[in-house]
């Protein structure tokens, strides 16, 4: 009996090889999309983690400067006066190489004698005495990562040209930094040098930080020493701000990966269930000649398993290739903007492929099981009757629509109850989309009913038949249409989100960049008070805003501090509307403003106190309100410059905003300012427009990956769905023949087929529009808020919406063309006899 079942299936596919091809294509693409995005996501995550641990190692705490670097003498005191043993001085910075000028590389200056307990720098410094002696004693000697030497064709003894702050310095490679197992797993090792060499090459007299390994008691002891100008930070905290940066970038990828999963499930389900449903009649016959229910069920499942396996394996291979492209893109973006060269591709763990396997095979089996159970359950007669199938399909779609309501309610309730959890946010997103998808067959039917008169008017009887055919073929088209809706909604949703985000960033930039020209410097005391005074009275200048930017370590991690003396047009901040008079209070030194991400992450509200490490120790500052900030994920504190100078005794200025009289000659004004500044190469002068454009281009670059992923996911879903719809339409040979026999012209049959798929596309495209908006809303108000603390407005731009509709309709038209052409050509008698 099994042989009989087997040969029935074999014959079916032999007669219709394209059916088999399309089934395998659909499932493969579903698996590929999911696996590809998931692999890229995972790769990014692990690259971040490894980069962090490579630099930090066993360190439990860092001593970091309140206002930047730490003097050598502090390290000296720790050793000589406080007898601290597990302490390692570190200089960390970024440089470029003339041999690879487009990338930045991390250099790390260490004391090799202090390293063994720390990050296993033993492996950085080979156990070769000559190298160690050279590293410490000879100036301009470095250890270069093995991979870098390989890439640039360098050997031990080769010279390397480092570029730091526009100066070029030649160093000699005296050994490799052995990239132990870490490198295989995906982090790039820094260029390592002795701390003295680092100070000389990077032209500084200070150190970046001191890494410590401390017990809790020792940590308290260090804190109680009251060391001035530094703060003890838990390495985990510092790492976590590092992690958060990484996490932030990954959120978009995770959202995409989830959506890819959804699209994949629907795609596979549509393909496989169709492959079974279309043979319902054969199953009726088999049952009639004595095949038992269980045999039938098993037979179908075995078939689903075979097809599912082949398709899944192909899908995994395809996904692997897709991931390679995506991973490169992801790492490039990440490397460019977050961690420089500290990120390299990682080999994905096998379980990610296993997830794809489960998705492909599991969904295939599930998709086949439902119609198979149905076929096995019903009487042979009913199984052979198409009308019975469609009746039950109708019932099923209604039930699905009803079922979607509690799911959606539950998802909304979940989102309402847990307002901070990102996990719940994702769960809510997933369930709302899934529930919406369940509505698609019903809305499609309603839509078909509504447009039937219009179609009849345009296409005549073929149009009317097409519209009615939509409702009567839901068993075949329902899931595919839902899948198309979800895929299109994803494309729309992410597009809208990115657009909204971009508009918010533009507004924020306008609100922030109020001055015409900005001076900035990283050098100490490069801009003097007298220069600022001179600029203020320089012809054409209306006024200046003066800013000190610095990073300060706090108990809740490192934050950026922006101490400002506002210019003629205010503070240049967009304050959250909910807090009245925040700006006025800020102006009168009553407290500070904090950025939204900081507020959200630390759950701070106006009126709370934030403790900051001042020169006089930890001091509380009252939070007056929040301002929008997309600039940094770390979190920013804004305070009046006067307040900062009182508490930190730091007169340094590293940002000046210059307001120019619009009626003055800009060129003259600028050259006047240049004259005041003199020939100081450490001061950068940039125009408002330059910063704005540069910021937006960074934004676009960051989201390029999202965009690429979105298009890729859309494209693959599109191909998959077109193939699913095509296989559905191709199976309508008998229907077509009957119509032809009834005297409907081939051309009209063509129109019928094409207009029916177009109608499906239109229906799912239209449904995808509100669904896409909902998705964008969820991404903006739930996912982005919960992961970054960024607030932004949802902007309904038409381009993503129209693009989505176009995508859906094109997919469906493409799906209809070949079946329509076939229908036109095929002979009536052959088709009928065939049946």
């Amino acid at each position: 009996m099994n042989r009989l079942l087997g040969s029935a299936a074999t014959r079916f596919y032999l007669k219709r090889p394209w059916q088999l091809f399309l089934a395998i294509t659909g499932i493969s693409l579903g698996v590929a999309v999911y696996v590809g995005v998931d692999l890229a996501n995972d790769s990014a995550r692990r690259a971040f983690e490894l980069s962090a641990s490579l630099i930090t190692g066993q360190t439990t705490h860092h001593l970091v400067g309140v206002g930047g670097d730490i003097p050598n003498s502090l390290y000296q005191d720790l050793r000589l006066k406080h007898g601290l043993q597990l302490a390692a001085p570190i200089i960390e910075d970024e440089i470029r190489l003339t041999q690879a000028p487009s990338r930045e590389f991390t250099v790390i200056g260490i004391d090799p004698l202090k390293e063994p307990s720390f990050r296993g720098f033993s492996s950085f410094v080979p156990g070769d005495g000559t190298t160690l002696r050279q590293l410490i004693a000879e100036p301009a000697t470095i250890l270069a990562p093995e991979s870098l030497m390989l890439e640039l064709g360098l050997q031990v003894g080769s010279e390397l040209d480092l570029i730091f702050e526009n100066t070029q310095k030649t160093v000699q490679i005296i050994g490799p930094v052995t990239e132990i197992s870490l490198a295989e797993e995906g982090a790039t090792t820094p260029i390592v040098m002795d701390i003295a060499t680092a100070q000389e090459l990077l032209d500084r007299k200070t150190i970046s930080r001191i890494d410590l390994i401390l017990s809790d008691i020792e940590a308290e002891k260090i804190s109680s020493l009251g060391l001035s100008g530094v703060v003890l930070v838990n390495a985990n905290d510092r790492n976590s701000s590092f992690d958060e940066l990484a996490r932030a970038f990954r959120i978009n990828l995770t959202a995409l990966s989830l959506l890819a999963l959804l699209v994949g499930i629907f795609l596979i389900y549509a393909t496989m269930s169709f492959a079974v449903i279309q043979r319902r009649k054969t199953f009726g016959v088999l049952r009639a000649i004595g095949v038992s229910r269980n045999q039938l069920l098993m037979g179908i499942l075995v078939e689903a398993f075979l097809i599912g396996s082949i398709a899944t394996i192909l899908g995994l291979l395809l996904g692997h290739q897709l991931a390679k492209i995506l991973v490169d893109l992801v790492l490039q973006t990440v490397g460019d903007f977050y961690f420089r060269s500290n990120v390299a591709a990682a080999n994905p763990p096998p379980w990610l492929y296993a997830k794809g396997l489960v998705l492909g095979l599991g969904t295939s089996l599930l998709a086949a099981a439902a119609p198979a159970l149905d076929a096995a359950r019903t009487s042979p007669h009913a199984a052979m009757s198409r009308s019975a199938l469609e009746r039950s399909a109708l019932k099923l779609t209604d039930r699905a629509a009803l079922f979607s309501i509690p799911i959606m309610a539950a998802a909304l309730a979940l989102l309402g109850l847990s307002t901070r959890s990102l996990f719940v946010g994702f769960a809510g997103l997933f369930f709302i989309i899934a529930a919406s998808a369940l509505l698609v067959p019903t809305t499609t039917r309603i839509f078909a009913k509504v447009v039937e008169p219009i179609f009849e008017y345009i296409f005549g009887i073929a149009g009317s038949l097409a519209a009615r055919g939509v409702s009567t073929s839901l068993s075949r088209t329902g899931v595919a249409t839902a899948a198309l809706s979800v895929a299109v909604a994803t494309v729309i949703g992410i597009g809208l989100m990115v657009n909204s985000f971009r508009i918010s960033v533009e507004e924020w930039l306008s609100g922030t960049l109020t001055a015409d020209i900005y001076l900035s410097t990283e050098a100490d005391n490069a801009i003097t008070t007298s220069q600022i005074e001179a600029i203020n009275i320089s012809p054409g200048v209306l006024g200046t805003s003066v800013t000190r930017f610095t990073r300060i370590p706090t108990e809740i991690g490192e934050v950026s501090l922006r101490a400002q003396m506002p210019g003629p047009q205010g503070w240049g901040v967009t304050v959250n509307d909910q807090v009245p008079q925040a700006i006025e209070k800020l102006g009168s030194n009553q407290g500070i403003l904090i950025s939204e991400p900081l507020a959200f992450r630390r759950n701070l509200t106006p009126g709370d106190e934030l403790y900051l490490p001042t020169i006089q120790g930890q001091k509380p500052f009252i939070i007056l309100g929040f301002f929008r900030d997309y600039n940094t994920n770390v979190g920013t504190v804004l305070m009046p410059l006067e307040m900062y100078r009182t508490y930190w005794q730091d007169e340094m200025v590293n940002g000046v905003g210059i307001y120019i009289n619009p009626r003055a000659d800009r060129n003259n004004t600028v050259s006047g300012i240049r004259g005041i500044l003199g020939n100081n190469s450490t001061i950068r002068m940039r125009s408002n427009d330059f910063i704005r454009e540069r910021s937006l281009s960074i934004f676009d670059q960051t989201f390029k990956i999202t965009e690429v992923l979105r298009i890729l996911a859309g494209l693959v879903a599109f191909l998959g769905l077109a193939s699913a719809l095509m296989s559905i339409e191709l199976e309508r040979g008998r229907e077509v023949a009957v119509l032809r026999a009834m005297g409907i012209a081939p051309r009209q049959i063509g129109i019928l087929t094409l207009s029916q798929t177009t109608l499906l596309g239109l229906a799912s495209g239209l449904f995808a529009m509100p669904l896409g908006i909902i998705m964008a809303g969820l991404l903006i108000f739930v996912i982005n808020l919960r992961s970054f603390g960024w607030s932004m407005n949802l902007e309904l731009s038409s381009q993503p919406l129209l693009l989505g509709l176009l995508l859906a309709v094109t997919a469906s038209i493409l799906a209809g063309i070949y079946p329509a052409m076939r229908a036109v050509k095929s002979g009536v008698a052959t088709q009928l006899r065939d049946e």
Partner: protein
Amino acid sequence: MKNILLLSVVILMACSESKKTISAQGSNATQFLSESGTDGYKRVITQRMFDFPADHSSHDNYQNEWWYFTGNLETTEERHFGFELTFFRFGLDSTPAPRQSQWGANQVWMGHFAVTDTEGEKFIAVERFSRQALNLAGSQMDPFRIWLEDWSVLGNGQNISPLILNASSDRITLDLTLEAQKPPVSHGNGGVDQKGPEEGNASYYYSLSNLNATGALRVDDTSFDVTGLAWMDREWGTSSLSPDIAGWDWFGLQLSDGREIMYYRLRTDDLQSSPYSGGSIVLHNGGRISLSMNDVVLEPLEYWTSPETSATYPISWKMSIPREGIELTIQPYLNEQELNLTVRYWEGAVQVNGNQAGKTLTGNGYAELTGY
């Protein structure tokens, strides 16, 4: 003598991968010596009239150098302790490049600090390294001072005696004042201690073999007032050891009759004594009787295997000096005095019993066993 191998190996291996590898290689130390950059450093060839106090301080034109303190101490209740505190200097380059950075260094220092608590059956040993920069480590003449972060040896003006020793770590602290009872004694041939047949394979070597010690030490949470007798070894040179030397056994013994015996045996790979083994008997008045390989017979009596490193050391010995009629049994206060640090060796407090021509001899001392 003793630590020339140790030192070079330590510096060379300071940053090597794991203790296991180092221990394994430690026994094969000579291969690393050949790598040490001795070019341009002065070598110990000619005899030297030691010039004190200047010679107490460092000699940077020689590649390596050390100050080695050991001693046996006890409380008024006669509770016994042993201590070891050592400072090693290692020069990196004989013609150092000028450096802008304050971190720029051409000398590296290593310190070992160990306390033996006989009654408490505890042996605690720690080590540290530092570059000679930013005042983190170094040596000076006036006042005489050697320091490695907060471990230090401080003299009395330019004079070395009385000396104040300070060292502290998590579990042990030592604060001692040492007063020399005898003038420095030069070993070898006019201060030149030859280690092998090659020219320059030698070091300058003198000792303060009898230092009265008073002060305090802490083991974990308990502090003890202690008195006792300490020993200082001083060596410097630019030396690489003969390749067939596997290790050495060194003894510094302080006898109850006011004499001291220093003897080291250089062991070859086939467990024979090298002819460059040797030592001194320091007399009451500070006079010296030179000992050569043929004067001393050493015989291991008992072995101990370290549970931590599985190395087996001969920890108890019979030492005979037939020419003087001296017969001594040397036994450790505690078996477990192995320093499992970057370089692994056994260095511990020992007690001495024996006789000279029928007259009973007792005493204390330190033994150093390497290359096992």
